[in-house]
């Protein structure tokens, strides 16, 4: 198990490194002159050249890459070209907002999907048909559209939730929850459709297994057969799908943040990308991939724990 974990961590480090390197060279070797971009079209050539030198862009790209990588390994992601603030702090400020949103949506997805998937698999009939139809539509609605409608109804018309803005958890847990409730629901809809459908499928699979019949032959209550035994055996599939959905949720959060005026990573990424703030873009990509890698390792540990064959080996 320890070896398995070390291998996964090693693979994760390699993944972050590969992505960071690709992004570095993509952003360093292409695009318009950063000095020109920062100073604007009216600046004279000398000022642009001076700016380039100030940013160290006159040095060979491999040297810049080495410096950036050395810094990044020590936790220093450089300085924003536009605000001169450390990228680490800019990302660090925005991360809690995005993580709150994505993790809340993940928890919501996990809970609702398991309930819906299990109920549809166990009860069958019209309820199952309804879930299947609704999930096709839920999958088709862009989550920012759901966000817009939720915002329109619950924030603008009814005023029960704030339409915009984020309250940190440490400041006021109740208002924190209120500030991320609508965005998290909007974000989770598509993921719920996907994970619930998968959970339903794997539950139906498991409920058809021989050992489920044997457990029932022992006179165990349906509750134990379904919720303890069948769900436990169906869990790995759902967890795997959920971990893939987590990546999709990070993607979706970028757009949802705009709808609800949350200044998270997505908002930072959108404006940094728009301006061409290369160090900030790089920092955001590294942090986003790092989050994905950490979550994947956690999921792998959970999958290993769920599977006795892996756990014991």
């Amino acid at each position: 198990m320890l070896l398995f974990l070390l291998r996964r961590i090693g693979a994760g480090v390699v993944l972050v490194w590969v992505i960071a390197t690709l992004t570095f060279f993509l952003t360093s070797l292409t695009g318009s002159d950063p000095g020109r971009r920062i100073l604007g079209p009216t600046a004279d050539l000398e000022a642009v050249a001076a700016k380039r030198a100030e940013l160290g862009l006159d040095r060979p790209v491999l040297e810049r890459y080495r410096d950036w990588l050395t810094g990044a390994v020590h936790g220093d992601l450089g300085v924003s070209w536009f605000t001169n603030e450390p990228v680490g702090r800019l990302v660090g400020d925005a991360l809690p907002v995005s993580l709150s949103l994505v993790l809340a949506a993940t928890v919501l997805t996990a809970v609702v999907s398991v309930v819906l998937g299990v109920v549809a698999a166990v009860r069958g009939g019209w309820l199952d048909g309804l879930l299947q139809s609704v999930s096709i539509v839920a999958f088709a609605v862009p989550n920012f559209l759901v966000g817009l409608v939720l915002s329109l109804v619950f924030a603008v018309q009814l005023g029960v939730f704030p339409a915009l803005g984020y309250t940190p958890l440490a400041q006021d847990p109740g208002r924190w929850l209120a500030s991320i409730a609508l965005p998290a629901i909007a974000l989770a809809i598509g993921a719920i459709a996907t994970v619930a459908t998968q959970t339903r499928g794997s539950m139906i699979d498991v409920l058809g297994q021989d050992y489920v019949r044997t457990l029932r032959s022992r006179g165990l209550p349906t509750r134990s057969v379904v919720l303890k035994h069948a769900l436990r055996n169906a869990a790995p599939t759902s967890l795997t799908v959920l971990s893939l959905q987590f990546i999709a949720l990070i993607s979706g959060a970028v757009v949802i943040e705009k709808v609800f005026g949350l200044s998270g990573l997505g908002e930072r990424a959108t404006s940094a990308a728009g301006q061409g703030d290369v160090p900030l873009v790089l920092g955001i990509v590294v942090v986003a991939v790092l989050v994905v890698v950490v979550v994947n390792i956690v999921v792998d540990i959970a999958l290993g724990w769920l599977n006795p064959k892996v756990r014991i080996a």
Partner: protein
Amino acid sequence: MSILSASGPAGPAPVEVLATPARAGAVRRLLGNPVAVGALVWLVLIAVLAVLAPLLTSQSPTASKITEALAPVGGDHPLGTDGVGRDVWAQLLYGARTSLVGSLTVVVVALLLGLPAGVLAGYYRGWFDAVASWVASLLMALPAIIVLLVVLAQFGRSTALAMAVFGVIIAPGVFRLVRASVLAVREELFVDAARVAGLSDARIMRRHVLPVVVPPTVIQVSQLLGIAIVIQAGLEFLGLGSANQASWGGMLSDAFQNIYAQPRLLLWPGLAIVLTVTAFGLLGNALRDALGVSGRVPRVRRRGATTPPAVLPADEAAPAPAVDPDALLALGGLRVAYPGPDGTEREVVHGVSLTVRRGEVVGLVGESGSGKSQTAFAVLGLLPPEARTSAATMTFDGADLRGLSPAAMNRLRGRRIGYIPQEPMSNLDPSFTIGSQLTEPMRHHLGLSGAEARTRALALLDRVGIPDPARVFGSYPHQVSGGMAQRVLIAGAVSCDPDLLIADEPTTALDVTVQAEVLDLIRELQAERRLGVLLVTHDFGVVADVCDTVVVMREGRVVESAEAERLFADPQHEYTRMLLGSTLEDTPARGSLPASDLHPEEIAVPLPTAGGNR
């Protein structure tokens, strides 16, 4: 915006594909499905509107006139104007162009990369598979929108570029699906045979591999088209689409700016996106049905998967056999039927009657498909939910089993009726220890504490002949052998001191050496506890070894039922004679010995089975 979900769970999705002839009628089947026709009509309509946009409106979708901002419906503007005075109807038409072109770009790129890579990786495996799979997992770990932001930051706002890059990001979904399909077919017989026949790889691929790859890919393409529209709308909503190009996402962005002043603006682009993406999704599902590709999930409408079917009293006045006062289990006129695909019922058990007395071992014998297992499961109430069961008599220890509530049936199952399954390894829950599976019913039925149940379970494991009970108690099913697992299941069946044991081919799946030991164990336990046993088997050797009475079934009917000795000595029914004959055919003892004098080992030759009965 659940991107990447089209690629499904991380493992290769098992895909079953019918043979090529099934595709001949695919188009006809597709057009016979009203949902598919509806989806197709909508998509064709959108495509026509997109192509004919210049004929359908004289307005420019991008010309803004601040003086006409948020103009109402009517006049020059059939759907009004947006926040900067652009015509909504014109934007909707030209936006359809943008959406369709963008989603086609995604699909073309994803197919160009994913399809050949998937075929090559699945067919040749080796280093290419390793590298391609690694690249795929790398791409799948990337949040798509963040990558697109980086690319657009470098190369400027361009919807076409963004969609091409998204095609690359989503290509692993195609790659994995194609690879899994090719891997599945690669090992199949016809490919091996084709190789032996000396066909070239290219020909094998064209003739055998591609037909299997195409149907699931077509379905996935339909889903990808929808996903691409959603992702594109997201980018446009963020203001990262091409400038001066009408788009549905851009319309939503404008509607968002004016959400207080004119919420109606959300309606048209929102509806266009949702309906179009839903149409692609429904079309994908319809294609799945039409092409006969089934995922793992059965798509039939089902009743609940755990609601046991209630046994109904027989409606005809069947001559109920006189119930033996000694009977532990009395079954009269049992019928089991299943609904067929065309709505009619197909009966598989036609009025079976049998009696099991306390301390008696009754063998229920017949070939595969004779309905013997159906009969046993009907007694346990463990038939699949769609089964329809009725009986003139069905009593256990004098109590009527018909119409019993699931809860009442649960109090009998495990507590008073024990069950030993056929295949030991698939009948233990792989996720729980053997100890926990043994103690749970005892704690539930007998109200034992954890420690008491453990003591009792260890004693039971010892009793069934397991050498190191403590170790097995803490083991998971995959850590013990098949023979051990069957002993564990027998221990489980008798753990709550039942009166009746129902054993479904308890030795069929075991090695010959273990079979005799397990039979001995069942017989010992039966004698020790005066159990009534209903032993389902196709093996006359087993019958001769342990049964007092034999009931012979054929095609859902009892053809003969007699004491074991009498049946062996003097079989009455032609079918019984035939079964006995086929059992004895290859045994050296055949000849002058009367059947009843045979030693079980000598006649323990299983009946020829019609397949699948193990």
